[in-house]
């Protein structure tokens, strides 16, 4: 019984790994994945000719989410980071019954056997993976302005396994039969207890899952503000519409990164150093409009797994996203182009409106983050050939690989994306 109480706490600790306002989740991914978007690495620096339509299909996957940069910037496995050791100190801290049990075990022999009691480490092994497919339709309004509409379809899978490791319960089996409470403690299956604690609190049990849904529809505008022979200044604006899944406060595995109404503005300056080589410094910020969400409000810092009746509708004000990047483009030939990019950014801490159910500020803790990302992109284009002899279908095929190489309070993202853009 007493272990269950502790597990409430332990399971609640997972919330500390959630970030960016998604309280009480096992992980949260800032999933901005549309083309023309500053955070999508194949940074577009061209607009379509006027009246030209360009359908594009993007297919990508993000993995590496099982690793996370901690608040000190160390990259750890989520499994290790989220695991917790149930030693005597931990047990005694949170429950008087456990304290009593340890004190009792300390009476056996001269070795303070209670102090050495260890139920082991509970590891929550997760392997989240996101695949997406996004049909995009762009249209050149004028020679310097293109707009686009994207419908991202997300396929999210997560394999989860709860393991209890490194316990010394086996040694303490010799004490079996002495007290029902001790027997119960020795029989503790941390995985089951965790699941049971979640169910009791009205959460969905932690189980592997796979689902597919429509993400937030995005509207994009690309406008060349200044254009010279060797340089261009672009403004990219992305508006996300809240069409994706709403915030789910009962599902600790939910991504909870959708259903946002946001605007991102990016300024990119393209400087052709030579015919083959260009550099693209860029700056961006993203603003998410305050939204009302239904979340569980903890009563205090120790209330890490709030009850079902703690749900309340609060206004979430997501902190601003800032980043700055530099892309280097190298045209190997008329068809092939290689691009490498580096991005550094940060997010401001979220804030929540007050709630009568508890302290909503607790949810916002550790929602600020920083990141540094790199990307490599190779593209093949038939556009030039098409313009020369009209013999080819005008299209661009590209493959991007990107990774988060440093950060704080953020999951690592290692992704690949295949993109095919047609023009007609």
């Amino acid at each position, binding site marked *: 019984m007493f272990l269950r109480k502790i597990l409430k706490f332990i399971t609640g600790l997972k919330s500390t790994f959630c970030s960016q306002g998604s309280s009480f989740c096992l992980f949260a991914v800032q999933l901005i994945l549309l083309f023309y978007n500053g955070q999508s690495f194949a940074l577009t620096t061209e607009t379509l000719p006027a009246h030209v339509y360009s359908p594009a299909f993007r297919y990508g996957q993000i993995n590496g989410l099982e690793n996370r940069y901690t608040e000190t910037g160390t990259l750890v496995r989520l499994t290790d980071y989220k695991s917790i050791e149930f030693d005597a100190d931990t047990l005694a801290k949170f429950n008087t019954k456990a304290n009593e049990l340890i004190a009792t075990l300390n009476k056996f022999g001269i*070795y303070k056997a209670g102090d050495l009691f260890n139920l082991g480490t509970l590891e929550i092994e997760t392997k989240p993976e996101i695949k997406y497919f996004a049909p995009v339709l762009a249209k050149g309004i004028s020679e310097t302005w293109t707009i686009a509409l994207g419908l991202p379809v997300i396929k999210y899978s997560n394999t989860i396994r709860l393991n209890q490791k490194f316990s010394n319960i086996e040694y303490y089996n010799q004490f079996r039969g002495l007290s029902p409470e001790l027997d119960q403690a020795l029989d503790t299956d941390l995985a089951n207890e965790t699941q049971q604690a979640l169910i009791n609190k009205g959460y969905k049990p932690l189980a592997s899952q796979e689902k597919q849904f429509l993400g937030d529809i995005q509207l994009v505008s690309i406008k060349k503000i200044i254009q010279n022979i060797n340089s261009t200044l672009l403004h990219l604006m992305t508006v996300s519409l809240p069409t994706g899944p709403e915030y789910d406060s009962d599902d600790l595995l939910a991504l909870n990164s959708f259903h946002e109404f946001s605007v991102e503005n990016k300024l990119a300056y393209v400087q052709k150093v030579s015919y083959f080589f260009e550099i693209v410094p860029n700056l961006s910020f993203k603003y998410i409009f305050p939204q009302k969400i239904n979340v569980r409000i903890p009563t205090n810092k120790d209330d890490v797994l709030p009850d079902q009746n703690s749900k309340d509708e609060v206004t979430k004000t997501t902190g601003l996203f800032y980043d700055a990047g530099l892309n280097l483009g190298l045209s190997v030939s008329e068809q092939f182009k290689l691009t490498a990019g580096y991005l550094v950014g940060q997010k401001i801490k979220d804030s929540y409106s007050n709630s009568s159910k508890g302290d909503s500020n607790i949810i916002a803790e550790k929602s600020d983050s920083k990141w540094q990302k790199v990307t490599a992109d190779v593209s093949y284009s038939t556009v030039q050939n098409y313009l020369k002899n009209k013999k080819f279908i005008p299209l661009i095929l590209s493959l991007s690989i990107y990774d988060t190489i440093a950060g704080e309070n953020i999951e690592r993202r290692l992704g690949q994306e295949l993109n095919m853009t047609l023009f007609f």
Partner: protein
Amino acid sequence: MTTIQKYRLLALVFSVMLSCAPSVQDSENKKPLTPELQTNDVALQQMHKNPFATVGFALKKMGPKKNYTQKNIQNLFEIGQLLKDQNANEKAAFYLNQQESVALKNNKAFAETYYLQLVEEQTKNTLKKSVSEVEKNILADTDRIEKMISDSAEILADQSRPDQSLKEQLALAEDLISNIVDKIQSSDVFSELKIQIPEKLNAEAKSFLANVQSFDLEFSKMQTLTEKLNLMTEYLKKLEVQIDADYLAAFKTGQELGLSIDRITDPQNTLQTLALTWKMLTVEERIQHFQSANQSLYELFNKKSDEDIQCLIDGNCTGLISKLVLKIGVYPEIEKYGVEKIKADLNQAAIGFLSGKINATAFEKIKELPETIKSRIRDSVEKNIGLVQDFKNKFKFNLAEGLQKKLKTESLGFYITSNAEVELQEQIALMSNDLYSIQGLDGSEKLVKQFGLIEKVISLVDFSNQQKKLLRNGLSNYLKNPTEIFLMSTLKNTTNTLLVKDQAAALKFLSLMVTATADWKSGPFDSGLTEIRAQDLISDFKSDQLNQSVFPKTELFNICFANAVKILKQIQSEKSLVYLVNNNNERVAISDYLSGKNHPTVALAAASDQKNNRSMNVTKVADLALMIDALSAFSQATKGIENSQSQILKDPEIKLQIENANKNIELLVLTLANFISSQMIGPKNLVDDAYDFETKSLSQNYQLSNQVAAISALIQAYETTGIHIYLLSAKELYYSTNRNYFDQQLKFYKNSLSETKTVEINKDDVLNSLNHLISIRKYLNLTSQVQFDRIFENWYVAILL
């Protein structure tokens, strides 16, 4: 930019990117620690020069031999048991005999023993029922035998006639008896009757008939009436035949007649005899015998009055006429007939008459013979039934007498006293030693020890100040009723003090007795006492029911088990000397704990002596170790108890109680062991002498005897509960003992930490230390085992010399 330059730039960019690839930091999770030994055994040989004693050194240090106490003998026996060393057992048995021969007091007669009282109580109802049953059967069979006799009598009645000679009558009587004997022997009557009645008939009746036959033969040889009557007198006396007054008067008259006939010499006394004969006969007989023989004589007598006849008999008739008639008429007539002839005729007639009478009497008597036999049989049966009743009433004394003979001693040496008081501790040590010594005994010596042990087990009740109350409803009830018993230190109960060590010692001994008498195990009570049948002790009365054992093993087990349970019951009682201790080191009465609904977490138990019904504040490690020893012994003794054939243990409720009790005993052992190993450990990992609950502090007194007792207790706790941590704790204590107590000069352990100069060593300490430490030896590693042997071996050899 050339193509080569392009590729170089590209390679550089990718190199930079690859170098940025983050690496994941591994976690440092590892297997957590479990309790492990904190220290290792000290290598004494490396610490000291020549640390171990030689035999010579040991002999010198232990000093001159002195008398062994019962406790020393017990230690030696226990070492012998543990090491399976016959030398130690023999030595201990030798010292035990020596002690018992001088110190055993308070002899107890068998009839006064509790055991025979118990047998009497337990058999009272059965025996009563059994005897009543026997009585009923005997009486029913007696009726059947009487019927057989009546049937035989009817055959006899058909064959017997009054005119038959005595010889013929005797033959018929013999046939009758043979017929009765045959019928009884071929019937299914009670075996004792079937044997005894024919035997008696043959012995008594046939001998009687043989005598009568002898009489008949001699009777026929006698000539005169007087001779024949004298023979009759002789045989009547010989055969112890009782005759009635009429017959006696007739017999007297017959003797007078005989004498009168013998005196016939002339007509005058012939007439006197004839007159006497006339007087003796009836009117019909006078006609028959006188008228036919001599009409004139008949007429003469017939005319005479009785007075005249009497004067003729007396020979003093005075009338002249009468004298003339006699002289002129009668005497000449007699002379004419012949005096001698008359004498012969009279003799013949009298004998004929007598023979007829004898035959007639014999006829009558033989007719009565069946009834006589019946009467004799019934008398005999009633006498036997009386004996059975008597046997029932004196059963205990009969057994006691039988035991005296069987055990070849008149009484049991009972209490041992080394001073004025009979002390429980000493008595229990004696009992334990008696038990250990049975193994080497046989014959009556073994029987005496076995009986004495059981008697002593029951007699523990004498050490209770509630003895009278406990035995109020009889011994049988006392044993059946699982009431607690508290034992005082002395038989006289002079102080109102209850000691933990007394209760513990009693429980341990009773547990050893439970092991010894357990019917599902082989043990020292398999032969000897348990083989004695009641019939072996009772010779006066034979019965199939007496073929059962007087001391069946299950009954001995019941006695020992019941007493052990009584000691255990006291632990659960309100006045218990043992109590639980909560995590704040506050005492909680076991009865309160058991009756409470919300049990606090309790992992400790301890025990304290009581004085005037008040528990002392101090608990001593030696007492706790003894209690663990006793409880473990009980737990060990009752392993497999479900296989017992004891009727008491067949009761499902009792079985459940035993099961629960054993669980509680394990818990008690564990909590006591916890108290020693967690609360009584002082600096240097040594066990303190005592803990004070009032001041919540240790006494700061560290004795060797406490260390070895604690080590032994923790090993027992490990073996009873299977909890490994006690073994580790015991090893830790043992290593600390080696480190802190081993003395270079003494070449053995010193008795206390504070001792600086030790000149001599007491062999009691060697025995006590060895006895307690043997149990840990098998758990030590090889090096420590070798060191253990070297510490003790020569001291042990010196003790056995």
